[in-house]
């Protein structure tokens, strides 16, 4: 099969794993069919499809808005690549098992930390690591959330390394975002390249909102048969507002803001045109510290005064539970393989990336001496903020980073620079495909007696040539991810 002009100048650097092309430029078997179908497009034809796809996001309002220089906001679409990523079922099943194992273990860990702290007493995880964690939430002590679930929704980031293995890059068990883009991308793919789409048996992702609603109902307060579920958003100026409204609509539940809710006698109500209506389950998309101005940040206008008290009385369920941030702290991440062995009695299915804790003297020394070969990350940030990639940093930046670490060793970890796999990505302006690094944001749901993993997830692409940072806030784009029966 002759590759079209779209792939004419495609070349992969040595040492990189290209999921679509082998170094010899032959396609991997799964991609044979896909490539031959894409090769029927000329550059111009494909450029038109690409524009059509972009427009369809704009028309549907699948956008995010930044308000840096313009009070009305700069509304942008999340860059999207029409060439899908394929995960054969055999590989996917392995990933799915690994995700469930990992997130179940993190849930048990959270319960233990907020109750008996056995894992600390058994010295599997160092005590000072947990008590120095900024996201430890004292209001969660000795409290068991309904159903015993803390991390109902987990967004675990998975990468494929150039050794061909999958690794967990990080856990996100606070308010992981991005799932709406998976569903929006899928819609766009079906409408834009339907002739290609229909030739594959792609596993559906459309069941996510239903699964999420079932999860919410599954962890309702004990007293309630038919719970009133709501989604709590910071409002239309939040960059993820599209996702909030999309999920609320998909579940058919009310999208509320803090000012719509109030607490009376430890029950939560919303203001309706006909008076108060009780609320039982809240999927909150605001951070812990803004939830309740009476116990957290007093100046927060996003939250609901008295919410934590109602929560501790068991009168309302929050998803995710407050205080889950200790489980996705990047220093705690280093111990997750041990956490899995401790609670599950099994070896981890998905491996960790080796991680150096800067608050351990010997490891700190290694980090300082080898920083040019390491990635340094703050332990409590998300969105790709504050990351330093040693090989791409100037000497000055490295010195600055060292000073930062020395003043707050607990605040940083370092990892070897992982070679994320690359994937064929359409580059606007060049009008051709080039390899770009990708990762995979997966979505796992846990309920009292149910679990669910979204088939595939959000493949995130670092659009800048050579960049390893895939986050949308840092100029990343995304691809549809196809789980296909092999």
């Amino acid at each position, binding site marked *: 099969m002759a590759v079209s002009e779209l792939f004419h100048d495609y070349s992969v650097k040595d040492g990189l794993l290209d999921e679509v092309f082998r170094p010899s430029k032959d396609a991997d078997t799964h991609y044979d069919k896909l490539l031959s179908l894409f090769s029927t497009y000329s550059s111009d034809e494909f450029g038109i499809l690409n524009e059509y796809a972009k427009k369809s996001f704009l028309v*549907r*309002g699948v956008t995010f808005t930044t308000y840096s220089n313009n009070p*009305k906001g700069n509304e942008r679409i999340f860059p999207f690549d029409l060439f899908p990523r394929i995960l054969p079922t055999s590989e996917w099943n392995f990933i799915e098992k690994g995700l469930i194992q990992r997130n179940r273990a993190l849930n048990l860990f959270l319960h233990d930390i907020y109750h008996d702290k056995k894992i600390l007493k058994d010295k599997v995880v160092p005590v000072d690591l947990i008590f120095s964690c900024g996201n430890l939430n004292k209001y969660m002590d000795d409290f068991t959330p309904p159903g015993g679930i803390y991390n109902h929704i987990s967004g675990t980031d998975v990468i494929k390394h150039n050794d061909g293995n999958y690794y967990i890059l990080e856990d996100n068990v606070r308010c992981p975002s991005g799932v709406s883009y998976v569903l929006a991308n899928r819609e766009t793919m079906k409408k834009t390249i339907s002739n290609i789409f229909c030739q594959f048996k792609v596993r559906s992702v459309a069941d996510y909102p239903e699964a999420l609603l079932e999860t919410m109902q599954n962890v309702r307060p004990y007293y309630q048969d038919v719970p009133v579920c709501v989604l709590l958003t910071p409002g239309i100026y939040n960059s993820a*507002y599209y996702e909030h*409204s999309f999920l609320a*609509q998909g579940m058919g539940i*009310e999208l509320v803001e803090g*000012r*719509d809710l109030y607490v009376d006698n430890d029950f939560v109500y919303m203001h309706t*045109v006909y008076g108060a209506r009780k609320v039982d389950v809240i999927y909150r998309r605001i951070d812990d510290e803004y939830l309740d101005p009476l116990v957290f940040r007093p100046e927060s206008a996003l939250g609901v005064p008295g919410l934590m008290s109602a929560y501790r009385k068991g009168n309302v369920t929050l998803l995710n539970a407050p205080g889950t941030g200790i489980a996705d702290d990047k220093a705690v991440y280093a111990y997750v393989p041990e956490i899995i062995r401790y609670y599950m009695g099994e070896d981890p299915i998905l491996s960790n990336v080796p991680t150096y804790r800067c608050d351990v003297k010997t490891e700190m020394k290694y980090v300082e001496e080898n920083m040019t070969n390491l990635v340094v990350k703050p332990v409590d940030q998300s969105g790709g903020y504050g990351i330093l990639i040693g090989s791409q940093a100037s000497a000055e930046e490295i010195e600055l980073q060292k000073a930062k670490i020395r003043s707050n060793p607990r605040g940083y970890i370092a990892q070897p620079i992982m070679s994320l796999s690359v994937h064929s990505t359409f580059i606007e302006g060049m009008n051709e495909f080039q390899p770009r690094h990708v990762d995979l944001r997966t979505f796992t749901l846990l309920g009292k007696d149910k679990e669910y993993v979204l088939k595939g997830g959000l493949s995130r692409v670092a659009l800048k040539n050579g960049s390893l940072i895939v986050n949308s806030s840092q100029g990343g784009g995304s691809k549809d991810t196809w789980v296909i029966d092999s």
Partner: protein
Amino acid sequence: MLSRVADNLFWLGRYLERSEHLARYLSVQYFSSIDVPYQQQRERAIVSILDMVGMQTSSDRPLEEEVLVAVALDEKNPVSILSSAYFGRENARSVRDSISTELWESMNNYYLFVSGYPVDVYKTKGLYDFTSNVINHCSIVRGKIQNTLMHDVAWRFIHLGMHLERAAQVVRVLLSKITDIQTLNQFKLGNSLELQQWNILLDCLEAKDMCRKFYNALPNRLNTLEFLLLNPEFPRSVSYNLINAHELLENISRMKQFSKTSLEFKVGKDINHFRYLEVEEVDDNVIPFLEETLQKIHLICDLIVDEYFIY
């Protein structure tokens, strides 16, 4: 339904109605002024556009081009068509989960059309294209409201906003045009000019054909005023809209017991005389009557806020 959602829906309806009336007034006034015999008429048409929008001007003879742009596409002008489309869309965005996807997308598309319209095209050759497309977009959005939503309390709040805003816009159009006619009469330009102005007024509300048909006569002062103020079956008469708004309020209210302190009672008392009003009763005093009506509409809106939109 959340009080905040009801508030957003009410305003969605208001901004939709407002921008459509602006676009129509702008278009009709501008194109009717192109071939007028007298310069005063043309200048008056531009001032009239400003009056209707409620914009102040420092000059007696503002630059035509500036006015046309300010009213349509000036994002800094809070009463421009662009701003109305923007606020309407922001209200829809706030309640995206409560309305149909189709309604949201039609609203979004409407805004994208307005915000993407090139100002230089608009200034040179696009005024008709722009205004007629705005009107068409509004019709599409209204179609989605009508056919893709449940006709439940949410729909009623949108319609409540639409009817009250439409009543207010019709009053504003009447005020502007009657002022135009009085101003032009001072120049003593002749009777045929006044007939032409009644025709323009009816065009501004897409009412000319139905008015002629209803009276089997050409428009004059009395029949035009009666038709636009009091006709119970024409959907752009003030009376039609106020009576409908009152009925919507009664439907929204779940109160079983009659109460003299209820919102519906207060509003009903305020607007009921429209049903039995004769145009001759207001003809002598039409401008004060219209101003008073506008104030009543604003008062009704305030009462609705107090009753339903506290959160």
